């Protein structure tokens, strides 16, 4: 018995959800929902417990990095890909977020999906996702990480297309999958390059090799190994975390059930890209170019998505775009070298964004499937708990103190401000914050305040069951206190979260250009500015959508051009369709199908078939169906064999040679 059982048997943590998934998937069809619940919640809950125990043991052991090779999976030449799991502070954060939030969302889903068909299928998929996500975050080398990476892609595909009878749903699933393929392509290339350079893909070995002075940092504009590799990896991250230009799948992914949107497309999977960038920070800090690209892309995405979010009317779409923009924040943080801040925001975002989605789900549940905010309003009286939790999360995401979002966003903006030439980034970030608070409150006001815009006789608004409200409350609490670990930083104290992650990111933190005191005062001022921006957004939203609703439409009319562009999301989908999809279709129709397939392949196949028929026609005559003639054929065959043995020079001896 190992002294630290859970660490020694770390593989149990990801395995449990897999078991749950397998059991539900194989036998669940016949079972009542209750049994399925037990299996799904049991497996995930257990794995949460195991994860907690493992974390406890990890800290108890006090080591910086726990790493264990369980079995070798692939070996080819000097290439080894093992089923190796590792645990360090970064992993701890990720694992706890995944299992914890995941478990809460599982509980929520039992209530939300109660009346859906394919109940067992849903939970089987959900557990499968948990398994792959845990593999992803626990993996100790890029190959295993990639397994999880692809796995979560698969799970998200399955879950987006959960209502596969709806064409839009299945299309959205395919879209997500294909767009991710583009990113994964880059990711794989990055892996290959890394292996070719360092002959290993194990994190520890790779980073050791990378951080030895032989590899000098690559300045701006240099395209050395690191830059290329990092850019390729970042390409993958873009795909997974829905950054420009590969973000298009995420809004459509809202076709999936709301718990899925909450778990996969807000809390965990989409943050995988951020995780990867943070995980391979050692590589990124070597390449200024890569960092700059990451920062710019992140920042741009944040602003871009926020602007689209302004005019969306589908409650989940709004949240989707806000997710994209928040992810942009995280990348911005990573880009400016504040990895811990990025991870911090990742965590808090996981809390409040999951909460937002779940609350939105609760609203939709209450409205009986209605998702368009224009047909809501005045719900705050009817569904108090949902309203309260939603409000909390909105405040959090808007970045108002003392909620979680405030601290994390503040940290990001600070570090963006501090790096040389980072001011434009900072300004854009600030604007994004403003926009964020605006559209979030727009959502709140449209949904919960004002006079009802729906037919009260048709729709019977009702509060959700406690199985759904429980997770809401839990997440609400988290999104309130989630940020306080970094609170002391405001009044000059240390940033506990950052220092907690120091063993991982070490000295790669954002350049501390200013002295302590100056930094402290600067931090306070920036915080105030951010809060002010958030409040402005709030105010505008209040004015436009509660005081003067007609003004909103007026504004929309006056800014017709902008409004339509935003409504159509900058025509990005149409752009892609025109530039990529159509040509592809044309090629595949005219070249691959009409030419290659029909002419060449079918021609060959049919030709062979005709030849076979022709031969068969002749050969058939031997098949008289008469047993005796068959007997003669047998004799002929035997005769040939024997004759060969007999006439072959020196043959025969070996025939019986074995007897000796």
């Amino acid at each position: 018995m190992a002294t630290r059982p859970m660490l020694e048997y770390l593989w149990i943590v990801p395995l449990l959800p897999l078991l749950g998934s397998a059991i539900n998937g194989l036998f669940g069809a016949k079972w009542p929902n209750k049994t399925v619940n037990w299996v799904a919640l049991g497996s995930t809950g257990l794995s949460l417990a195991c994860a907690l125990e493992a974390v406890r043991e990890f800290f108890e052991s006090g080591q910086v990095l726990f790493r264990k090779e369980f079995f070798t999976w692939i070996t080819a030449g000097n290439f080894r890909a093992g089923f190796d799991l590792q645990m360090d502070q970064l992993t701890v954060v990720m694992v706890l977020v995944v299992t914890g939030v995941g478990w809460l969302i599982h509980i929520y889903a039992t209530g939300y999906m109660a009346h859906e068909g394919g109940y067992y299928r849903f939970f089987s998929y959900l557990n499968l996702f948990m398994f792959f996500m845990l593999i992803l975050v626990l993996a100790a080398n890029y190959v295993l990480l990639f397994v999880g990476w692809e796995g979560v892609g698969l799970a998200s595909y399955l879950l987006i297309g959960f209502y596969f009878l709806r064409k839009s749903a299945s299309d959205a699933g395919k879209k997500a999958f294909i767009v991710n393929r583009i990113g994964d392509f880059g990711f794989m290339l990055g892996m290959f390059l890394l292996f070719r350079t360092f002959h290993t893909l194990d994190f520890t070995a790779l980073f050791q090799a990378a951080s030895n002075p032989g590899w000098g940092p690559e300045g701006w504009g240099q395209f050395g190994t690191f830059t290329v590799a990092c850019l390729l990896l970042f390409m993958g991250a873009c795909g997974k975390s829905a950054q420009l230009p590969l973000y298009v799948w995420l809004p459509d992914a809202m076709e999936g059930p709301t718990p899925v949107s909450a778990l996969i497309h807000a809390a965990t999977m989409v943050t995988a890209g951020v995780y990867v960038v943070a995980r391979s920070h050692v590589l990124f800090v070597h390449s200024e170019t890569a960092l700059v690209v990451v920062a710019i892309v992140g920042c741009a995405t944040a602003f871009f998505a926020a602007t689209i979010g302004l005019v969306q009317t589908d409650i989940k779409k709004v949240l989707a775009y806000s997710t994209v923009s928040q992810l942009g924040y995280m990348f911005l943080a990573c880009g400016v070298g504040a990895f811990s801040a990025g991870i911090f925001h990742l965590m808090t975002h996981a809390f409040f964004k999951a909460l937002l989605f779940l609350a939105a789900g609760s609203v939709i549940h209450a409205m009986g499937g209605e998702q368009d905010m224009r047909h809501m309003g005045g719900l705050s009286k009817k569904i108090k708990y949902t309203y309260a939790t939603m409000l909390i999360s909105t405040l959090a995401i808007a970045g108002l103190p003392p909620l979680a979002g405030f601290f994390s966003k503040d940290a990001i903006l600070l570090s963006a401000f501090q790096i040389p030439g980072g001011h434009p980034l900072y300004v854009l970030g600030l604007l994004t914050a403003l926009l964020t608070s605006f559209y979030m409150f727009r959502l709140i006001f449209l949904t919960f305040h004002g006079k009802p815009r729906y037919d009260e006789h048709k729709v019977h608004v009702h509060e959700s069951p406690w199985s759904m409200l429980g997770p809401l409350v839990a997440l609400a609490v988290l999104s309130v206190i989630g940020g306080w670990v970094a609170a002391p930083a405001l009044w000059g104290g240390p940033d506990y979260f950052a220092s907690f992650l120091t063993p991982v990111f070490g000295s790669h933190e954002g350049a501390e250009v200013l002295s302590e005191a100056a930094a402290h005062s600067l931090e306070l001022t920036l915080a105030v500015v951010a809060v002010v921006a958030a409040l402005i957004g709030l105010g505008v939203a209040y004015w436009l959508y509660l005081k003067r609703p007609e003004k909103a439409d007026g504004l929309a009319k006056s800014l017709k051009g902008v409004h339509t562009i935003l409504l159509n999301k900058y025509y990005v989908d149409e752009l892609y369709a025109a530039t990529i999809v159509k040509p592809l279709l044309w090629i595949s129709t005219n070249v691959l199908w009409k030419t290659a397939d029909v002419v060449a392949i079918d021609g060959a196949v049919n030709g062979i078939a005709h030849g076979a028929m022709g031969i068969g026609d002749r050969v058939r005559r031997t098949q008289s169906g008469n047993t005796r003639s068959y007997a003669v054929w047998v004799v002929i065959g035997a005769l040939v064999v024997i004759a060969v043995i007999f006439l072959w020079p020196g043959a025969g001896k070996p025939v019986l040679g074995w007897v000796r």
Partner: protein
Amino acid sequence: MTASLVVFFALAGLAVIGAVSLILQKHPIHSALSLIVVMVALAGLYLLLGAEFVAAVQIIVYGGAIMVLFVFVIMLLNAGVEEHTNISKLAGPPGLLLVVALAGFITATIVRTTSGVQGSSQTGAMASTSGISNMLFRDFVYPFELTSFLILVAVMGATVLAQREKH
């Protein structure tokens, strides 16, 4: 011309005669009887070769079980004298030629390849029986077990085949 040679030629002649009569007989029962003669003669040859156990098994299984089965089936189906049809052209003179060639080739090949093979010391009879059992249960135990499966399958197959489907 030692005694063993005499016995050999006697038995060999018996076997060949039996085999030939298997062909010449018109009625399956007579063919079966001729075949039994062949088998008994072969058993005698096995004895001559010092393979007593095999000889006994030959008679018990071939003579006592398999051929009884044949006779049984012939009696059951009340098979008559075989009729003369010549639908198959191949099974005519050309076939005859082929068969003769085949037999010649086989014999010639084996003889040529075993020229110089001379009977080594006789393995003692009882030794042979116990030795066989040793080999059967040590070296060949898996094939042995497999044959048991084979027989099981055969039994089931025969049952399924031969039972009249109930109406």
